[in-house]
């Protein structure tokens, strides 16, 4: 079975919410929608306090290159435009909406009918993706249309679809593949057309055999969409590792996938593109897994963007007594949440509730030089060495030890028997090296 070439770990899969079908989450009474929910330049607000909006109406516009539109997920009245705290504690401009009914813009098709015929051409598709505010739903929230505007002289050979879902606990992509397989495949066809490539490769981890089988059956109706089962190993879904597993091509250090003729998008993004292009539906909702060992009602929910996190937890039976940590995303790369009053964003794919016991790190001892961190690093780095250099504040040496190539997958930190905070030290190194590079550039 295909897989990546270096390192990797196998954390407990804990896909506890596999069997919960997607439920539509009820509309909140009040919602907070961040103006910018993507990686890149901020979007420009186009609504004012007191405005009545409909669901799907544009509220912030992309006026710069790497930027994305934001739409209102609700019909209602804008009561306030102010800073709001996101789940990591940062204050960001947001629109507060009092939700009234559920009235959508007239040109949006909210039915469940599947539209198979792709009418738009490549350029129109890319424009539509941009207009509908589609961002990468794998977690990075990079504006999707940018990936399809290839730099001069570059040509893509493959569209790669990341349906790996290698993070433990997460099941939103799995449920999407089970329940909306055809929409996903039409989305892949659209992306192929946008990119002007003949072939799409869909990587799915082997721990989802029914998704692989269902997709393989359905994909026979399409030309050149190949479903590739991949070994269950973390981080199979990391972009560079996935490209290698599927094509044996290595993205050079510091370069983008297009350098080796690939464009990668998440399966969730493909489905969002289907909705955007075929149904005129902007990205205003996504599937969220609420899970954790102590959670009584584990669910996969279709949640509108801007729903307060607390209300999602309340819907699933409230916060378990001994919750110690809540993570947005999976346990390997997700971020710890500091404020439950924060709303969901376009890329909130999971809320993972961990008990107090699970929340603390294991006791730290001296490094044993066991070398496990070196063996599990999917980028072929030496975390043991970079960590030592970071502790001695030798940033330039850390740079020479390829610290900037770290993809922050956390395999080293996960595996370290001495409980050393290897990824923390990697991040510190990367920040300092980044600073040094910027200072150099200014001089």
């Amino acid at each position, binding site marked *: 079975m295909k897989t990546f070439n270096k390192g990797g770990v196998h954390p407990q899969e804990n896909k506890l919410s596999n069997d919960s079908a997607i439920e539509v989450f009820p509309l909140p009474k009040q919602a907070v929608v961040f103006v910018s929910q993507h990686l890149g330049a901020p979007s420009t607000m186009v609504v004012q306090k007191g405005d009545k909006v409909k669901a799907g109406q544009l509220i912030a516009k992309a006026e710069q290159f790497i930027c994305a539109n934001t739409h209102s997920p609700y019909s209602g009245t804008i009561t306030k435009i102010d800073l709001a705290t996101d789940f990591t504690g940062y204050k960001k401009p947001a629109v507060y909406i009092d939700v009234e009914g559920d009235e959508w813009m007239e040109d949006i098709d909210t039915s469940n009918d599947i539209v198979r015929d792709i009418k738009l051409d490549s350029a129109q598709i890319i424009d539509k993706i941009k207009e509908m505010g589609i961002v990468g739903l794998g977690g990075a929230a990079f504006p999707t249309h940018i990936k399809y505007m290839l730099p001069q002289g570059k040509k893509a050979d493959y569209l790669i679809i990341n349906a790996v879902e290698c993070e433990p606990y997460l099941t939103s992509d799995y449920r999407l593949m089970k329940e909306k397989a055809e929409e996903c495949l039409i989305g892949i066809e659209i992306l192929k057309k946008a990119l002007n490539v003949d072939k799409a490769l869909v990587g799915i981890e082997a721990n989802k055999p029914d998704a692989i089988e269902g997709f393989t059956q359905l994909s026979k109706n399409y030309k050149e969409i190949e479903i590739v089962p991949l070994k269950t190993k973390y981080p199979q879904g990391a972009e560079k590792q996935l490209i290698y597993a599927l094509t044996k091509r290595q993205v050079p250090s510091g370069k983008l996938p297009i350098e080796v003729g690939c464009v990668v998008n998440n399966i969730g993004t493909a489905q969002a593109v289907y909705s955007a292009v075929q149904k005129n539906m902007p990205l205003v909702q996504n599937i969220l897994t609420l899970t954790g060992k102590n959670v009584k009602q584990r669910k996969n929910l279709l949640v509108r963007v801007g729903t307060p996190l607390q209300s999602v937890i309340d819907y699933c039976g409230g916060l378990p007594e001994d919750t110690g940590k809540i993570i947005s995303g999976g346990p390997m790369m997700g971020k710890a949440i500091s404020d439950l009053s924060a709303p969901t964003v376009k890329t909130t794919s999971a809320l993972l509730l961990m008990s107090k016991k699970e929340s603390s790190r294991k006791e730290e001892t001296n490094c044993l030089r066991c070398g496990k961190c070196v063996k599990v690093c999917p*980028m072929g780095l030496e975390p043991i060495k970079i960590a030592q250099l970071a502790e001695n504040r030798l940033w330039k040496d850390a740079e020479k030890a390829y610290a900037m190539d770290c993809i922050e997958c956390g395999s080293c930190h996960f595996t370290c028997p001495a409980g050393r905070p290897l990824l923390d030290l990697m991040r510190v190194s990367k920040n300092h090296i980044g600073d040094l590079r910027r200072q150099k550039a200014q001089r």
Partner: protein
Amino acid sequence: MALLTVSGSPHVQSNQTTKKIMWTVIIALLPALLVSIYYFGLDALMVTLTSVVFCVGFEWLIQKFILKTKTTIGDGSAIITGILLAFNLPANIPLWIVGIGALVAIGVAKMSYGGLGKNPFNPALVGRVFLFISFPSKVAMSEWPLPKPLFSSSVSDALTGPTPLLAMKNGQAVDLWNMFIGATGGSLGEVSAIALIIGGLIMLFRKVITWHIPVSFLTTAGVFGLILWLINPNEFIHPAYQLLAGGMMLGAIFMATDMVTSPVTYKGQLLFGFGCGVLTIIFRSFGPMPEGVSFAILIMNAVTPLIDKAFKPKPFGY
């Protein structure tokens, strides 16, 4: 509202810990200890206990009164050093010498570098080599206690005799099966190949060691020994004896695999084992002494940083 923990990812960790690794090694050492008690009597146990108590005691004292840091004796690493040091000594050694060995192993070879994980040389081996060159009459390699059934008086008045390696050097016949099970003269923990191999398999199964160092060490020694034997069977001993005699198994399975003092990459570990194997056979075949495992491993410990530098993994995308 309950307070939430906020920390960087990853939010899960493997269940392997330093303590678990160390205790697995201790458990893996037990079969050899039991065999040694069986053959050398309670003296073997006394030497081992003395060594462990002194090693742990010195680590605690040094941390408490000299370094003034939190004690780490709970991690079990000093216990391992204690057992391994004892395993490298004859069962009839005076206990005060064991104490001196423990002081050198823990005080000089481990704590002076900063404790667990910081020492360049295997502490037990440093202790053993120190005793070997300081008290050759007590820790020499000529006369060792010969095995005796368990619970017969004390081993000190048992017959002493040459180790198989020395016997062979003198042209005497040695029984291979006895060497495999441990019914032979030697340091108290090194005699039984089978018990040491069982310990090695325990560590392998629990992923505390990988096969690379032991296999490369033993294969190299076997092949190199075979070549010498084929060239001149009268002068050089049979490779089977090379592998079963002396500290070869103990060294290859428990000493060379010490993760602190061996390379971190598989390729580096293969080279490390190769170096240990070659040096051991050279020392044994051409040196003045019948045994050379300790020195071979210590020399390879010294080149470990160089090996690590030479066998860096190749980063992805370069």
